[in-house]
């Protein structure tokens, strides 16, 4: 359930006092990160002020505190509360100082509780979805995980829309790439079940090959902990996506970045001389993943989780027609689609030949 939201997207916040449980800068960081959870998926921008009345006043108190109509109940029980958008107490968030506030999994993680309370401050009620951040009971999740569930994102975007709809004042960022630009090229392309995702800079297009739908999103709207400028991506046999940038790679399952990532690509079996991956594709028919680096490629066996012997090999030898560096590649209905700048080559891995050349933006129904 949602209430009317703020009528503006630029909101101010003020940290009125700090809990002695944590270093001041850790409190500031936790509050800033908690607000960023919501600004990542909406057009909202939060600016901190140090004096006067902010839209969102943040304070620690115990039992009856100030003029607040609600009171706290000592350790445990109620941890914090907040008020819906509006003047006066509207938008304010209060935290029970009798709790043990922390940055980790002990006590109560201030970032997680603050992110929940700011959901109320923006107009969200409680959700009965146990996976939702707006579920009333406290539950610790690792900070590396993005705390919003689809339920939370749907709720907040039903009030404020998604981040791409309204131009915002973030530091100079490139405007969204033109979907049908004739010279468009991609950093990486991967399937995700029945859809195909095309990545470029901070953005990704979600395409459903079976119908004309194309959605432009921010990568950070799904995976805020992923960097922009992903260089390679592929969907493996376990319903996971691997994203590569430089010598790091992340494994994603649904909305979650699996714990322990990023890892270094040499854990996959690449020599130290390999600094980055240009493109990758898992051949669903063989269970083997091909990694393309410059004019060579490695082959990785997903079943044995190990790099095959005898690699790297020259790409041209095994993929006739693929003669230059590959930007991205994915597999659809058995065929490979290699992206080389604004050119795309449809390749039959069985017949080992290029079937045809098309434009890179051919999937966008331009």
């Amino acid at each position, binding site marked *: 359930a949602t*209430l009317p939201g703020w009528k503006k997207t630029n909101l101010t916040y003020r940290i009125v006092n700090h809990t002695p449980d944590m270093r001041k800068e850790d409190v500031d960081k936790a509050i800033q990160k908690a607000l960023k959870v919501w600004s990542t998926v909406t057009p909202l921008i939060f600016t901190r002020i140090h004096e006067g009345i902010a839209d969102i006043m943040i304070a620690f108190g115990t039992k009856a505190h100030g003029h607040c109509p*609600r009171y*706290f109940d000592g350790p*445990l*029980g*109620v*941890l*914090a*509360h*907040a*008020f*819906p958008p*509006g003047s006066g*107490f*509207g938008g304010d968030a209060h935290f029970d100082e009798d*709790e043990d506030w922390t940055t980790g999994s002990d006590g*109560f993680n201030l970032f997680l*509780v603050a992110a*929940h*309370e700011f959901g*109320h401050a923006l107009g969200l*009620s*409680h959700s*009965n979805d*146990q996976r939702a951040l707006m579920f*009333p*009971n*406290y539950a610790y999740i690792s900070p590396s995980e993005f705390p919003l569930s689809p339920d939370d994102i749907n709720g907040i975007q039903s009030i404020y829309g998604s981040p791409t709809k309204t131009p915002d004042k973030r530091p100079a960022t490139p405007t969204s790439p033109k979907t049908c630009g004739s010279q468009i090229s991609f950093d990486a392309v991967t399937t995700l079940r029945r859809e195909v995702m095309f990545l470029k800079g901070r953005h990704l297009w979600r395409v459903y090959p079976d119908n004309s739908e194309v959605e432009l999103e921010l990568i950070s709207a799904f995976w805020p902990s992923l960097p922009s400028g992903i260089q390679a991506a592929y969907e493996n046999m376990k319903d996971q996506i691997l994203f590569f940038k430089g010598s790091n790679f992340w494994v994603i399952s649904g909305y979650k970045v699996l714990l322990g990532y990023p890892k270094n690509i040499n854990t996959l079996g690449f020599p130290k001389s390999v600094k980055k991956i240009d493109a990758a594709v898992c051949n669903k028919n063989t269970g083997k993943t091909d990694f393309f680096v410059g004019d060579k490629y490695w082959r990785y066996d997903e079943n044995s989780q190990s790099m095959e012997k005898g690699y790297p090999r020259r790409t041209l030898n095994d993929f006739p027609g693929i003669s230059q560096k590959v930007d991205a590649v994915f597999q659809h209905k058995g065929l490979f689609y290699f992206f080389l700048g604004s050119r795309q080559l449809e390749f039959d891995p069985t017949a080992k030949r290029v079937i045809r050349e098309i434009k890179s933006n051919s999937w966008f129904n331009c």
Partner: protein
Amino acid sequence: LPLHSEKDNKEEDTKLVEDYLNKFYAVETDPNQRGWKTNAESTAEKLQKMQRFFGLKVTGKPDTETLEMMKKPRCGVPDVGLYG
């Protein structure tokens, strides 16, 4: 140490239930009047609402599972109706 008597426990549980329902399941807006109207539902009805919200067995009684859920640390905003 003196042990809690059965009676003490029961009284504690009753107080927990009352506090919890008054705090999180008692405030509803009345569309016919501006502002708040205290919820005249019975404790059993409020308990059922709480059990339904948390996906518990809807018994209307403060069974063990329900009491355990009520003891979990949580947010102070009501679960039903318009909060604030």
